[in-house]
């Protein structure tokens, strides 16, 4: 994204990006929209500094907001008469995912989020975080291994991901 890109021009793609990662963690459209809007609003206030490479910042903020929201939702659940969401067959996995991400070290979390929640390539993650591709592979591998403690990632795909990551 070039230096001259205006916020409203970049908005649709960035919003979809924020919504996608938020929904993967939260599984609720209303909350995911709320988080996406919050992330984009914060980005707007920092646009002068973000306009060159906003995507990584957006993904990271949206994920952190989602994790926070997930934690808050658990704290207040049962206390507020919230409407019941549609049945989400992946709810337990999302809960585990949020918990697992919360416990990752910061850099590992950033890499895992960009690499696997946002589906970025290793090279894109390296550019976004300003680190080497080797560092991305290392963090991704360790981060994914840590996720295994919380998630059932014993599938062949999970194994392949680790191998592909280095």
């Amino acid at each position, binding site marked *: 994204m070039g230096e001259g890109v*205006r*916020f*409203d021009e970049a*908005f*649709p793609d960035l*919003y*979809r990006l924020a*919504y*996608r990662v938020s*929904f*993967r*963690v939260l*599984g609720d*459209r*209303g*909350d*995911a*929209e*709320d988080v996406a*809007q*919050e992330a*984009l*609003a*914060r980005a*707007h*206030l*920092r*646009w*002068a*500094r973000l306009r060159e490479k906003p995507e990584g910042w957006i993904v990271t903020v949206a994920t952190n907001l989602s994790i*926070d*929201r997930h934690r*808050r*939702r658990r*704290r*207040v659940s049962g*206390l*507020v008469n*919230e409407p019941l969401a549609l049945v989400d067959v*992946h709810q337990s*996995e*999302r809960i585990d*995912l949020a918990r697992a991400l919360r416990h990752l070290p910061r850099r590992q979390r950033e890499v895992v989020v960009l690499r*696997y*929640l946002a*589906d970025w390539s290793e090279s894109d993650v390296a550019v976004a975080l300003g680190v080497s591709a080797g560092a991305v592979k290392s963090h991704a591998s360790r981060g994914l291994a840590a996720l295994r403690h919380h998630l059932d*990632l014993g599938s062949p*795909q*999970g194994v392949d*991901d680790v191998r592909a990551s280095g």
Partner: protein
Amino acid sequence: MFEHLDDPAPLAPTPRTLRAVLSRAVRLRRRRLVSGFALVGAVTLALGLVIGLTAPRSHPAGQVSAAFDTHVGALAVGTPVPLVNLADVVFMSDRRGFGLAFHGASTVLADTDDAGQTWKVVNDSLPADLPAQLEFADTAHGYLWGGTPSAQGTVPLWVTSDGGRTWVLAPVGPVVSDVSAIGADVWAVVGTRPISSLSATDTYPATVEVSLNDGVTWAPTATAPPVAKEPGISVADQDLELARITPARAYVLSFAPASTTGGATVGRLGYTSDGGQSWLERPDPCPRYFDVGQEMAASGTDDLWMVCASSPSGGSQAKALYRSGDGGRHWTLTAAANAPVLSGDVSLPAAGGLPVGGYVSPYSLGHENLAVLTADAAWLFPDRSGVFQTTNGGHTWAPVSGLARAGLVAGGSGNVVFVDADHGWVCEVGAGLWRTTDGVHWQHLDS
């Protein structure tokens, strides 16, 4: 590897979504205080947030708005502005007001001389777009600041002396966080270093500058107010509010949430009664588990209202209202919502009718959604909720039934504005404007 967790049918962002985000950005920036004591010239900012992509309303105004939004090229002065496009309004009297309105992704200045019934374009090439903030001392002299920081990390202040037709860069800054004008006497809370010069670990250097000639020349107050130190990374949405009670008496409320300090939430309240020659620090009543924000309003020189807000979730948010009758020296918990459960502090009351639903902060800040008229009467419009009113000093709150009867749909977001006890407006972004002329009955204005 997480594709199976995707939304199978994600909704595409629309121009309305962009508006909602811009409105939220406005709210993040804005920590304004209203002085109900200085009712004449009370500022009203009507911004809102439309959460979710609600179905378009079956209303002719929607067609008018669409035509306005899709208009290509400059808008002539006098072009009618649909009320649903208004994002921020201020009133100087029961008839005259100005407003910022969305025009596609840009912002125009509009004015009204018929109590908000109709609005017309004054300027379609403002030097700052939303989330800019707007204040007018009278029908000629106005102030515009905020919006997206420049590439140099500045947030300038623009001044008009001809009712918004032309704007001049004011020699104050470089980062203007809040402005309050009482006649020609104007104060601004400013950051003394450009945002771009601050590192993530720097704290925010802020002070107060004063102009006595409608914003033409400026000078700092003799001393700076106490402010919460927030790391530089969050300067862009620095939580600073300026409340002028009289030309000499003012409060500066600053708030640094835990998410920016890396530690505990910090709130500080500075007070001056000598025009900024000296500042005292008053206690901040909000317990630290109200970790998102706080806002303050005043009905008089000593009567202060402070609303504390926790992190929102699922449309709900714990809130607490504290009152002070001695200028902030002492505070009394007046009402709370869900706070005991959230905090584990059973000393907080769960009663009082302060709504659990809706967000007070950081999405609805300062006087945008809290209007305090007297020591007894106030209105509150939390985001994603409806408008609530108290007539007993905040001890109990109830929905304003007259607004529902006039067509305001609860669940949106917007702002409450009063210039006196009878004349007020409620703006719901994307829905329009409502007005009362007796403080009881409400009318939906329709252009």
